[in-house]
């Protein structure tokens, strides 16, 4: 029997320093519009969007500029009023040159978004609802950027029992979801009302980590007045609680089997920011044209939570925050655990950018790595119950075929193992590298 003060969480995981104190109480600021915007066509997982504008076209803020390129794909809208300068290749955060729509803002035009009459979402059939969310350009805004509408497709024999709203924000430094929950709790609850009704969910649970007390209070107050049953679950602070499967484990004590989706256990998981954006779309016709992100880290002059139009170059966002300190060594897009370091500051903010963190020489790990001492800390850390040190050993030896026997494909690259390793072995990166080699080999086999 669980003790009285028992707090829900999942098994395994790690406790990195939170570093959230610098930004968690700062209200969301809006970044002024800049001159030019870069909008990659592939900001989400799946097929890239297909442009519907051509150079020199005039666009309004919120106007559709690229339509979905397939089912697992989503729409893209102009974040500013201005004109299209070119369709060209630009560098994205992964370092690849990818096709983008380049926009220039009109400095004399109003950037006011013209709201549309609310959609009668209750009258929509489930297919129309899915199409609508696809045209809103909604993706999972926790970082993975998976097109949200795909999760809303009803599947035969798999009814949705619970809607799980992810407000964990377990990554250190990031506070953008926290601020969204505090400042826009009405939007979150409104989004829950729409989505829970359309999916036919019995109950909605908002999972929030205990370090966000004010968010829990505000959400509880807002949930009390909601027309659908909403419960706020306070969860123990632990990384990676915000991972879909870990969150389900923490809230419901249900395990999502390997290779299966939350829908297989009757659940749909969405990030709080995504839910708020969904409410904006159905109430005001406002598509996903900006997002809230956290700029933080020891090398940032003025940390902040910002509402940034999509496509704003990282350089402009950092300049708004007073620029980088001279001893800056590394700028990371996303959280420190799963984010990716940038090779250029001219990459744009995209739908999945949850944070921009800058670190100095002192913060970046440069130390030596030692041999594995088989202490087993990575096994205790891995939330997926894998054997990370074995996988790292196989990856290093180049035996990537044998890695499948140790379930390498279940790794979510949360980085808990690397964080826990006393020998400083980049376990997560080794597994990622091996997985990339595996993918390349498969691509070659398909070609032959």
């Amino acid at each position, binding site marked *: 029997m669980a003790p009285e003060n028992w707090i829900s969480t999942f098994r395994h995981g790690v406790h990195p320093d939170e570093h959230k104190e610098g930004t968690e109480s700062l209200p969301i600021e809006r970044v002024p519009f800049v001159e030019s915007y870069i909008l990659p066509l592939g900001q989400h997982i799946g097929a890239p969007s297909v442009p519907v504008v051509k150079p020199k076209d005039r666009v309004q803020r919120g106007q559709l500029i690229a339509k979905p390129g397939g089912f697992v794909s989503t729409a893209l809208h102009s974040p500013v009023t201005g004109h299209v300068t070119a369709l060209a*290749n630009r560098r994205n955060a992964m370092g690849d*040159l990818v096709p983008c729509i380049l926009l220039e803002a009109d400095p004399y035009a109003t950037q006011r978004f013209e709201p549309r009459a609310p959609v009668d979402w209750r009258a929509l059939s489930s297919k129309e609802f899915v199409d609508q969310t696809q045209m809103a350009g909604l993706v999972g805004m926790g970082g993975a950027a998976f097109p949200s509408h795909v999760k809303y497709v009803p599947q035969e024999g798999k009814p949705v029992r619970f809607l799980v709203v992810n407000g964990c924000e377990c990554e250190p430094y990031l506070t953008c979801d926290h601020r969204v929950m505090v400042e826009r709790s009405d939007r979150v609850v409104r989004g829950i009302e729409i989505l829970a009704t359309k999916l036919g969910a019995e109950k909605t649970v908002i999972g929030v980590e205990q370090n966000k007390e004010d968010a829990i209070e505000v959400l509880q107050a807002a949930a009390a007045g909601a027309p659908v049953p909403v419960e706020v679950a306070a969860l123990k602070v632990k990384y990676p609680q915000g991972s879909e499967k870990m969150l389900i484990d923490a809230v419901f004590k249900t395990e999502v089997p390997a290779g299966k989706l939350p829908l297989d256990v009757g659940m749909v998981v969405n990030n709080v920011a995504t839910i708020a954006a969904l409410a904006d779309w159905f109430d005001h016709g406002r598509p996903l044209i900006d997002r809230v992100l956290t700029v933080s880290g020891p090398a940032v002059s003025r940390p902040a939570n910002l509402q940034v139009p999509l496509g704003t170059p990282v350089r402009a966002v950092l300049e708004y925050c007073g620029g980088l300190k001279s001893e800056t060594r590394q700028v990371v897009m996303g959280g420190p655990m799963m984010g*990716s370091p940038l*090779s250029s500051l001219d990459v744009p903010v995209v739908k999945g950018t949850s944070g921009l963190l800058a670190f100095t020489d002192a913060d970046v790990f440069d130390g030596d790595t030692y041999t594995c001492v088989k202490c087993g800390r990575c096994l205790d850390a891995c939330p997926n119950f894998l054997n990370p040190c074995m996988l790292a050993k196989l990856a290093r030896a180049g035996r990537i075929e044998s890695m499948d026997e140790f379930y390498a494909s279940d790794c979510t690259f949360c980085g808990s193992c690397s964080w826990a390793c006393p020998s400083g072995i980049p376990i997560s*990166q080794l597994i990622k*590298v091996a997985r*990339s*080699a595996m993918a390349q080999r498969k691509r070659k086999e398909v070609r032959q």
Partner: protein
Amino acid sequence: MENILSSAGIMAGLGLLFGTVLALAYRFLRVPEDPRLEVIIDMLPGNNCGACGQPGCSAFAETLLDGGNLPSGCTVSNPEKIDEIAGFLGVDAGEQVKRVARLHCAGGLAQAKQVAAYSGFESCRAAAVTSGGGKGCSWGCLGLADCVRVCTFDALHMNTNGLPTVTTQKCTACGDCVEACPKDLFELLPMDQPLLVQCSIPLGGEEARALCTVACDACERCARYARPGLIEMKNNLPVIDYVHYEGPECPEATFRCPTGAIQWVVEDQFEDSEPANRGGHVERL
């Protein structure tokens, strides 16, 4: 006493029985093995590199005996050994053009634009998954020597310009480096056609030139000046038809290349410590 005798007797009887079965099986079920097989295996290099397309030297020797391959199918062995095998078997040695691994990139430290510094463990593949490494060009050589580490014939080393150099004499065209390169830059090419495109950028014009001084900017001059049927432009890059083109070696394609992306390479690809040639200079003609 009786027990001991009877058990010994049973054992001896069983031994005799099985011995007879084995002797009969050897007499009637024997598959004669060609005595030449062992000799040929001894004559082959014994690297088991797989460059001939067989899983190893003994499998290759078997195909030699049944005529599936000619001795020159082994590209690792030297010509004298090949002739010796051909003489032993009484077959034609055949003609096999030596193939070597060639790198489709010449953007070393001196040519390609660097936009950031990668720090992490030394591996091209690791750099490639970490925001694509520090190079401006997303398709070029990352210079962290994954290919050098997998080469078991000591045919690869990094030159001072940060590019892997293939020592053609040692290269056996086993294809390990082709597998290892995360950017798919290596290709096994015949040495009798020295034309080589040393770039993989699928961009054209200014975009390509901004990334690297020896980039192919897709001006198509090489395709126009080359003999018909030799070069075709595909995806903003010249593609040389090594298989179907049967004409003489022809260096015209390199004459008018403005960046030096297409080169006439007879021996090793890069002179050590020298940056790649620029401006269509033709060497050893």
